[in-house]
């Protein structure tokens, strides 16, 4: 087995496979995707419902069909996909430490792309109160059970959360004869557009927003979720609880490799080229910005591939660039740094629904880019920034939100 390659891609989901395909199309011969599971494809593998694939294949596919096509396209283009291969750390110089079924190995790459995706926060990370019975899980676990293993973990769960993925949980339930008891949102309003929340109404699932979770009950299995809603205590009898959304980056490799992390996203910090604090290591996909669609991640992987391809042909411009400091009401911005030379698009998340204007300005207070915003809570906000001159990059850049609500 080769111990060197041009580009090693950590993670075989939409971003990683999109990047691998593009690098092969650009003519790179030795592109290796390192996938820790037995099969590449990422999270779409266990989202057994449409819509996936509009952007990539111009048709509507289910998650597993979409994942298979991504894998096939990459393999047809000559990409080597190593499954059951876990990257435990990336050392300076592009050295990857691997755990495989044959034991420990290393792989040295001229460039590395981290595309490890994200996952939902658990009840533990949300500090949700109560006892700890069997039957409390994330959407990801529910879907891996029903779509990958053909098992139904419960028949009348409560779904906590109202982000897009909660609708995916609803669809999963509908297809498998599972009847959710309620959707519970601890924030004061549903996190997706009204039209998306219609699905809950169509399925006859009540949505309780602004609820406070008092306790998870039951032993050994879940029996109820106790909560306070509109000033009243309620007990929702159920046999499962799905904690959905509140995504967080799967940033373990980045953390273990001592890459700089961003306090807003908890993922790696990057510049406008997608480069991390290690100049040989790039990052793409949901590990940067929980959470975007598979199609978005795939496109971002392809763009990262183009940057990496250019980077391999020339001496890279080093220098970290100017840091963007997000202000009040802004949860995060990606990239976290901008350098001179080329235009960029900032990917921004606000704290909750907002109306107003986001403004990027330089240390002297000069406005560099701005746009009006009217977002629902979990909506990505994108801000185009023109190529900046060195004066603009002399100090920290400030990103602020002027609210109008």
């Amino acid at each position, binding site marked *: 087995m080769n111990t060197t390659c041009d580009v090693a891609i950590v993670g075989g989901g939409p971003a990683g496979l999109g990047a691998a395909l593009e690098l092969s199309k650009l003519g790179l011969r030795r592109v290796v995707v390192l996938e820790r599971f037995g099969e590449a494809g990422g999270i779409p593998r*266990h989202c057994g419902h449409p819509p996936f694939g509009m952007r990539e294949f111009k048709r509507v596919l289910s998650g597993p069909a979409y994942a298979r096509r991504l894998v096939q396209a990459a393999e047809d283009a000559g990409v080597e996909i190593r499954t059951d291969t876990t990257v435990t750390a990336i050392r300076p110089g592009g050295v990857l430490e691997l755990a495989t079924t044959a034991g420990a190995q290393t792989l040295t790459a001229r460039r590395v792309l981290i595309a490890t995706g994200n996952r939902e926060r658990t009840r533990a990370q949300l500090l949700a109160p109560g006892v700890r019975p069997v039957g409390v*899980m994330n959407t990801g676990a529910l879907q891996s059970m029903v779509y990958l293993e053909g098992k139904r973990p419960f028949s009348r769960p409560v779904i906590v959360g109202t982000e897009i993925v909660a609708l995916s949980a609803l669809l999963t339930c509908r297809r498998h004869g599972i009847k959710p008891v309620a959707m519970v949102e601890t924030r004061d309003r549903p996190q997706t557009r009204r039209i998306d929340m219609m699905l809950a109404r169509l399925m006859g699932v009540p949505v309780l927003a602004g609820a406070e979770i008092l306790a998870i009950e039951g032993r*050994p299995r879940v029996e109820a979720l106790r909560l306070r809603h509109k000033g009243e205590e309620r007990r929702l009898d159920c046999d499962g609880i799905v904690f959905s959304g509140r995504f967080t980056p799967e940033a373990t490799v980045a953390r273990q490799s001592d890459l700089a992390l961003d306090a807003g996203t908890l993922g790696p910090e990057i510049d406008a080229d997608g480069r991390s604090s290690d100049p040989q290591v790039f990052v793409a996909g949901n590990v940067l910005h929980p959470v975007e669609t598979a199609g978005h991640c795939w496109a971002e992987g392809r763009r990262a591939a183009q940057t990496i391809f250019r980077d391999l042909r020339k001496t890279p411009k080093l220098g970290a660039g100017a840091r963007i400091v997000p202000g009040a009401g802004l949860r995060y911005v990606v990239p976290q740094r901008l350098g001179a030379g080329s235009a960029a698009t900032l990917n921004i998340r606000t704290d909750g629904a907002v109306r107003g204007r986001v403004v990027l300005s330089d240390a002297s207070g000069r406005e560099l880019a701005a746009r009006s915003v009217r977002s629902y809570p979990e909506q990505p906000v994108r801000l185009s920034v023109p190529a900046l001159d060195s004066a603009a990059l002399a100090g920290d850049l400030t990103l602020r939100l002027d609210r109008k609500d």
Partner: protein
Amino acid sequence: MADFSAEMDVAIIGAGVVGCAMARRFALEGARVCVLEAAPDILSGASKANSAILHTGFDAPPGSLELSCMQDAYDEYMEIREAMNLPVLETGAMVAAWTEDEEARLPDLLAQAQGNGVTDTRIISRDEALAREPALAGHVRGALLVPREHVIDPWSAPLAYATQAKALGAEFRFNAPLTGARRDGDTWQLETGAGSLMAKTVVNCAGLYGDKVEEILTGTPSFEIRPRKGQFVVFDKAASQHLRTILLPVPNERTKGVVLTRTAFGNLLVGPTAEEQEARDRPDVTTPELEMLISKAVELVPALQDMPVTAVYAGLRPASERKEYRVHADADLGYYCAGGIRSTGLTAALGIARHVFALWSESHSLAWSKPNDSMAPSMPNLAEHLPRDYQIPGHDGIVCHCEMVTAREIRAAFDSQLPPGDFGGLRRRTRCAMGRCQGFNCLGRIASLAEGKLRTPILPEDAS
């Protein structure tokens, strides 16, 4: 319901850490042992949640049974741990003083430690404390250093004791709560949720139900269990780089206070709280207390700010109305009790077992013949500082990536002498789904691997 085949020498009620150590001790002495456990697996009560520290007894009450049990057990653990492949993370501990008052109490603590025979303790200055632990908050004023306080694997150790007992012929009965008992001449007739049993001697190791079991056996319990809840927060493995030494507070009357310690599994742990409650079966986590623990950890080690949380849990300590262990014997009745083992049980269990056996020996001339072979098992290693299974070729793939648990390890747990009885037991034996994602990625696969193999299944019966 099937009755057990033959009369036992010793019936042990409860398969927590004390019951497991008790079973091992009596089996090593040649007794025919049966362990009755109310839950589907060992370590399902107080023993499933603790801070995993092997204590020296430096701050135990001088002259107490607790102290001698801890110190005997410490030595025995160190003797047997190599043969059993049980890890010790040699961390040492610092009782850190953060206020003038606390600093003023360090000399008393030192004197107590020296008096308890822990003679390698010493007071270190603020500078030495910070040199040893650079991530400590700057307002530390000094500390008592206890070099031999260490971290162990809190589940593999008692599992090893139980496995050894099993290999020596002990029986384990699960889902078998004691429901009735009658002394008939020199024999106990025990009724359980899973059949009846005859035994000459009963040892009460029932933890949180110790007083209830004593009531069934003797009619009047001599002590009262008052559960004391302890909540814990486990930080991401990245946190463990910020602290090597166990960080203890200057203790107060009620509790050892909030501890910050690495775990054998490479995490960093903060806890416990000390909350008295009535319920013996409600180890609830509560948001304000968890938030308090996190802010306490950040206060002591500021680098923990924004550190992701991996897990939270709560345990109930079987405290009683008095501070000391409630160990007593009635030789005529064939009744021995190891009750009220409130917070040092993980350390002291081997010593408590020795002590109870010594009490038994006082009134019995030994009729049993000791086994020739001690049948000490070699346990699978789960500790992060030692080689793990995933590093050994041929493991058939990693199932849980957060904790790097292989399919081979999970299969081995099911093929072991004491296979897991529920999902919690599987987690404790392998660490699967114990990590950052808590099963987001692996729960489906684990449920499939475990299908048909657990007394309490992961999936409901109509799952397929």
